[in-house]
């Protein structure tokens, strides 16, 4: 009875707060809405004011332009997918291996190595661009996808995140397996990895989004247009179509929509991973 009266008096306040927050949330996503809306308009409608959010006669021609023709986004998508997926799978597994070593195996030099990882986190990418450029040039992988894929296989953040997770797995779980004579490899593959599935998924999704959005490395290490990833292709499109605002927004949609999809599917994992690594890390 008491609960019911409390609830009913709360409802208007709850509704009010919800509406207010919804309004502000719409402001947050306006850039996305404006992008999609503009991509479906004609040039004359772009800067009409007040804004018509749903254009009178939506046109798909700008999206068609982005996806067909000699500089189709299809190529950029393929390049980005290839680099991001190889990087994501590799980085997740290599991080899991290293994280297990740091979390579960006692050996001399472990702490020193871990300190090295820690210190490398502080080195900004700007310090590494020039030497990597020169090393890749020397090794013959500058201006190839390998220049992005190979470094993409390693993430120090991932090692930290998974180490944290492995440390939280109670020792009792692995102890009985040890007594039964299982070695580290068996324990890692049979016990730890299955337990760590959510953490691995989190790392994989976050890493994928980093690699997909990575503009800076692609900018430094790629020059051939046919090797371009989506962010570079997008930049190229915008440089070449400086007044085609509808086309620009259609191209931007092409760049963003996969991330929105990944976000919608993996939101739970992403949020969990980021909070765990920030609050408990």
């Amino acid at each position: 009875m008491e609960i019911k009266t409390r609830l009913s008096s709360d409802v208007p306040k709850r509704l009010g707060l919800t509406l207010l927050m919804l309004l502000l949330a719409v402001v947050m996503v306006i850039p996305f809405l404006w992008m999609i809306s503009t991509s479906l308009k004609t040039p004359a409608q772009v800067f009409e004011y007040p804004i018509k959010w749903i254009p009178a006669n939506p046109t798909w021609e700008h999206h068609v332009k982005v996806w067909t023709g000699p500089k189709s986004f299809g190529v950029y998508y393929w390049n980005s997918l290839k680099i991001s997926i190889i990087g994501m799978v590799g980085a997740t597994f290599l991080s899991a291996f290293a994280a297990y070593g740091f979390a579960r195996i006692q050996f001399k030099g472990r702490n020193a190595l871990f300190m090295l990882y820690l210190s490398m986190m502080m080195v900004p990418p700007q310090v590494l661009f020039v030497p990597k450029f020169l090393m890749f040039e020397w090794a013959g992988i500058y201006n190839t996808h390998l220049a992005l894929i190979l470094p993409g296989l390693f993430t120090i953040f991932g090692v930290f995140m998974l180490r944290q997770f492995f440390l939280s797995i109670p020792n009792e779980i692995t102890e009985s397996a040890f007594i039964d004579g299982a070695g580290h490899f068996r324990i890692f593959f049979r016990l730890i990895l299955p337990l760590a599935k959510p953490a691995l998924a989190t790392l994989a999704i976050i890493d994928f989004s980093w690699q997909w959005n990575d503009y800076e490395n692609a900018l430094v290490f790629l020059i051939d247009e046919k090797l371009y990833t989506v962010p570079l292709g997008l930049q190229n499109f915008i440089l070449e179509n400086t007044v085609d605002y509808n086309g620009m927004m259609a191209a931007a949609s092409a760049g963003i929509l996969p991330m929105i999809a990944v976000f919608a599917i993996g939101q739970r994992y992403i949020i969990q991973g980021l909070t765990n690594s920030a609050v408990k890390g």
Partner: protein
Amino acid sequence: MTNNWMKRQRLLGYIFIGPSMLGVLLFFLIPALYSFGLMFTNYKFMNPNVEFVGLDNIIRLFKDPMFYLSLKNTAVFLLAVPVSIAFGFVVAVVLNQKIYLKKLLRGLYFMPYITSGVAVAFVWMLLFHPTQGPINGLLRSIGFDNPPGWLSTTTSSMFAIDIIWVWFLLGYNMIIYLAALQEVSPELLEAAKIDGAKRGQILRKIIWPLVSPTTFLLLITGLIMTIKTFGIIQAITHGGPGNSTTILSLYVYQNAFRYYDMGYASTLSWALFIVILLITLVQWIGQKRWVHY
């Protein structure tokens, strides 16, 4: 026996860490040392005449007005971090109340952080269009006859970038605060209410101090992350108009890959490292001193 066991453990440790270690050596440690060496040379890409120049690059850096301008621009860029933390805190506190559609709202606020890359920067570029953009359209319609030029004038461009950055970081700050607010004990809040504390008082005197470790962490990580960023600025302004949005990290990039002045670019990049080091030192000291648990 134990000796053997220890040897085996050590070998296994290296096997597990080895592949990742190889990457850290090849793509972090060796390049970092290489860059450190380049700092003392006049190496220009494709120019075979490389000389050891001692501290020349460092002296040049201290005399370079662009270096100081880039530091100033970086400082203005960093202002976005505390502003975004404040907004993130407010949104998190409200979302932590009894409210409908909590998950949807959280997702909407968080969306910019996860989807943003260069693509969104281009959207903002059009939104900020000084004469035709919708933002100035709105401002004119509500009576501002001379709205700012946003990205197109030297005095406003850095602040326009700040707005984009506040928008981008807000969702991340909110998510982390939401997690921190979960840890605030409801009994404590209930007790404060019973003692007659007002909402504002509870927020200022109880919640804010309790989440201060989170605030501190967000500030440090936000500053470090922001200082390393140059992608969105390179994409939409290339550091202009003039040099008004050339932040230090972008200035490194320009020296390296526009002027191919690798020696000087390396020197600048280590200056960037020192700024990060200072922020990290503040973190180490501050963790002990300023955070009230």
